[in-house]
């Protein structure tokens, strides 16, 4: 169905000028900015982006679960699809623990008041299709993760949706299970055995996107925007080790790393916001040290492609990107295309002893992280060398949402503690100089 490339393009869903904010109107934190996209019939589209990029929000807007503040989501009626409908598969499966597999699958039909005998027949057919026969009377807690997601899939398919929405459907599963489920789903899709016209899948796994999709929309975060649209023309079934597959994965890595540069303070524009308004992601100093050592070590020798790094460290984009960006922020690394290149400072760091490392990290922190500079300056200026954390939290909240402020402050606290440039006391919520002289 999807493999036959030569057919006319029939739009199914049209999203126009979508803007969405968190928080009460007017104002709030912008999560989606001017999103426009069209989903056509007979295609699998991937929304690729990092967590917090608003891709789940977009998915929920299309599902009708969220009402975007501005813009429209239109379901386009056509001849072979007079009343387009959607149905969703959840990352967390969203199964009712007190209903059996069959009752879970029948839920949507029940809401549509489908008569019991028909309901039963359709549910059994869906259960059969998805490879769950024999488990009809089981409760979700008796099933493995993979089987639960199959129930989620059957439940979504049984109502005959035109568009299947999938919200990171495989990310809660282990690698092997996820692979099996993906393959099974792709088989059903290619053989045209599912009653759906299109699939929209949200993911932060680049390889998953390349393996499954005909078209990938790359999302930037903060606010969420479509920054690139990538067509995947590799014939199915796709092999991960195929050179064109690898090349495309590398290209997407490069695209996701390189982003428009809005400011002069952060030369590569890696962090949204500048100055102290920069959001600092949760990255532990141990992880950073580990990453530096890994790239400094033998196979890479100070220069590693992101895709290979992700592979060898078994990391998701979501985990690897913040690390790479933090290294870049601290001038421990540069990003060249899809490659991470350590700076001479980082290579010295890799060889240094614990105390020397702390010193180098502290210097980098004070030189390149405005918030760390700011906190240190305030502490230095005060006679008591103490300052309430509340104050910095308030300052941050002027620039970002409460959650981001909390995350940023906790990150900078960890870094500052490691570098011994300041410390924090949970009991009275105060920063102080670690060793006041």
């Amino acid at each position: 169905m999807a493999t036959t490339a030569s057919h006319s393009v029939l739009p199914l869903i049209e999203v126009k000028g979508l803007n969405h904010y968190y928080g009460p109107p007017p104002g709030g934190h912008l999560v989606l900015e001017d999103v426009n996209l069209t989903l056509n019939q007979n295609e699998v589209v991937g929304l690729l982006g990092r967590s917090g990029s608003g891709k789940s929000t977009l998915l929920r807007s299309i599902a009708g679960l969220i009402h975007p503040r501005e813009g429209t989501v239109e379901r386009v009626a056509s001849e072979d699809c007079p009343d387009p409908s959607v149905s969703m598969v959840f990352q967390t499966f969203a199964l009712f623990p007190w209903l059996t597999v069959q009752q879970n699958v029948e839920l949507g039909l029940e809401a549509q008041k489908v008569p019991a005998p028909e309901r039963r027949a359709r549910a059994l057919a869906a259960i059969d299709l998805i490879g769950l026969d024999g488990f009809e009377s089981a409760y979700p807690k008796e099933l493995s993760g993979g089987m639960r997601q199959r129930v989620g899939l059957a439940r979504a398919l049984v109502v005959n949706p035109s568009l299947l929405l999938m919200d990171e459907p495989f990310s809660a599963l282990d690698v092997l299970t996820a692979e099996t489920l993906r393959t099974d789903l792709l088989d059903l899709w290619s053989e045209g055995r599912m009653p759906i016209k299109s699939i929209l899948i949200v993911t932060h796994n680049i390889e998953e996107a390349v393996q499954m999709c005909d078209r990938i929309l790359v999302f930037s975060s903060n606010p969420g925007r479509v920054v690139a649209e990538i067509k995947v023309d590799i014939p199915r079934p796709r092999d991960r080790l195929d050179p064109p597959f690898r090349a495309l994965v590398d290209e997407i890595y490069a695209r996701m790393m390189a982003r428009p540069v809005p400011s002069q303070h952060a030369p590569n524009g890696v962090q949204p916001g500048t100055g102290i308004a920069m959001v600092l992601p949760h990255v532990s100093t141990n992880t950073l040290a580990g990453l530096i050592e890994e790239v400094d070590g033998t196979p890479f020798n100070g220069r590693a492609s992101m895709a290979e790094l992700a592979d060898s460290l078994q990391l998701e984009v979501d985990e690897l990107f913040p690390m790479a960006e933090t290294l870049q922020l601290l001038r421990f690394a540069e990003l060249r295309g899809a490659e991470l290149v350590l700076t001479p400072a980082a290579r010295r760091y890799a060889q240094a002893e614990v105390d020397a490392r702390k010193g180098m990290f502290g210097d980098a922190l004070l030189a390149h992280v405005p918030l760390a500079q700011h906190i240190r300056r305030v502490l230095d200026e005060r006679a008591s060398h103490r300052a309430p954390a509340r104050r910095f939290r308030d300052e941050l909240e002027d620039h970002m949402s409460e959650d981001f402020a909390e995350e940023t402050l906790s990150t900078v606290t960890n870094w500052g503690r490691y570098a011994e440039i300041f410390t924090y006391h949970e009991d009275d919520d105060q920063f102080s100089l670690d060793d006041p002289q």
Partner: protein
Amino acid sequence: MPTSDALSGRIGQAMGPIRALPAFSRMLRLTRPSREDALAFAILAALALLVFRGAEGAVQPLSSLHLEPVTLDPWQLPYYALRTVLRMFAALFASTLFTLVVATLAARSRAAGQIIVPALDILQSVPILGFLTFTVTFFMNLFPGNVLGVELASVFAIFTSQAWNMAFSFYQSLRSLPGDLEEACQGFALSPVRRFLRLDLPYATPALVWNAMMSMSGGWFFVVASEAITVGNTTVTLPGIGSYLAMAIAHENFHAVGWAVGMMAVVIVAYDQLFFRPIVAWADRFRFEQTAGGERPASWVYDLLRRTRLLPVLFRPFGAVGTLLLALEPRYRPARSRKPHAPNPRFERIRQVAIWAAVLAAVVWTGHYILASLGLLEIGTALGLAMLTMIRVVVLIALASLIWVPLGVAIGLRPRLAEAVQPIAQFLAAFPANVLFPFAVIAIVHWHLTPDIWLSPLMILGTQWYILFNVIAGASAIPNDLREVAGMFGLKGWQWWRQVALPGIFPYYITGALTASGGSWNASIVAEAVSWGDRHLEAHGLGAYIASATTSGNYPQVALGIGVMSLFVLGFNRLVWRPLYAFGERRLSLS
């Protein structure tokens, strides 16, 4: 016939030693009602008979109470117990209905929630005994000259001790529904009714059942107070354990008190085994967990009913109610992205103003009523008495903690012992401590003790168990690795308490102490003024103040007493327990 042989072999294995069953008798076994069927049928039939027998008495003319006054004949006790239990279950039924309607309303409608939630929070912690005075007259006028009116007044009194915490728990469950399930319901466009039956109700059931059990225990405390009702100059005594006990106390009859206490114990065990255990076992399926594990609650009655064909019959009425509700369901409308209609800001403001105006008016009116009839001095007196009662509560909680924390930790760290002690502690918490008050009176009179000091322990008699079983639960939740580390370094004495035991049980202890302190305030109304025959003992305190105002029918004083006590209880919760609880959650939680 290899298949049937294999089958009979399997059946044989399940039943013990293998024996071959002839095919015919096996068929007979399948069609004939099993022994379990007979047993379950007998139990159910007996229960039904008892309900009818008890209900008969509740609709007699009022004069019948004088024809057959309550006697101290122990042979009448089972009948009295029946009447009391029926009252309690009627109240429980009413509480459940109230919960389903009011809590759902509060969770679904923001406007309703704004009023209902604080109201429930306050009602949870105010002395309910004080309300009795106001409600009796109302119900008696509903059915003049019939026992039913008095019965309803008594049921209502028990209801007021059960409903609030059930409703509050249900509300909290509805507010903490798992987001993905809510989205699934929304995505499949489940109607509100269907959503309620599929998601809200099942999800909230385990917590509701647990709170119903706690409520039932709390209700006993009020049974004693609510069955002998005084209206003006006449006292109506409903047949029941409560009035039997009251009479035994008035006649200084030790044997009768003993009979009543024994009967209560039997009744508590009976409804626990026949009613609550099966329900807890059944409700376990609604616990929100995706993984199987942990011990499932067991109940022999539930197992019995499950093995028979009676369970579906029992549930049919509830199913019918569900079907009936679904008949009211609107037509199916698929989920579409609709703009949520924002509340009109002006209308919103008017509503807020109206609410505050109503609250203000109520405060002003009550204040005026109390001031006009009692004066400032009286308010000062009430506040002073409240301080006295508060000192009692604080000291008693401290003393109870000193005793039960070490014991609870010792028990909790020994799983086998904890398993054995936990049900006993729960039984003791369910047991109405006020039946033991007369013994205190005798002791105080005999040794010429000061009532101001020696009546105080009565307040915590019934509520101290909450501290005990929460501490036990906390101690058994201390992770094994932490205990192993403590053992490895040989931590002992105060260091062990300071760094292992106390932080480990802290959040649990706070929960227990909060419940115990609230309960003690309530209990002060019955514990600060106690009698045995014609000997009356009174301690100085707010509880005794409310009690004497109730007896003399001084409504302004009752209102003032309740108001001041509510103020103290709420203040205590907000200023002491909540911050401590938040601290425990933040710093000492083990996850």
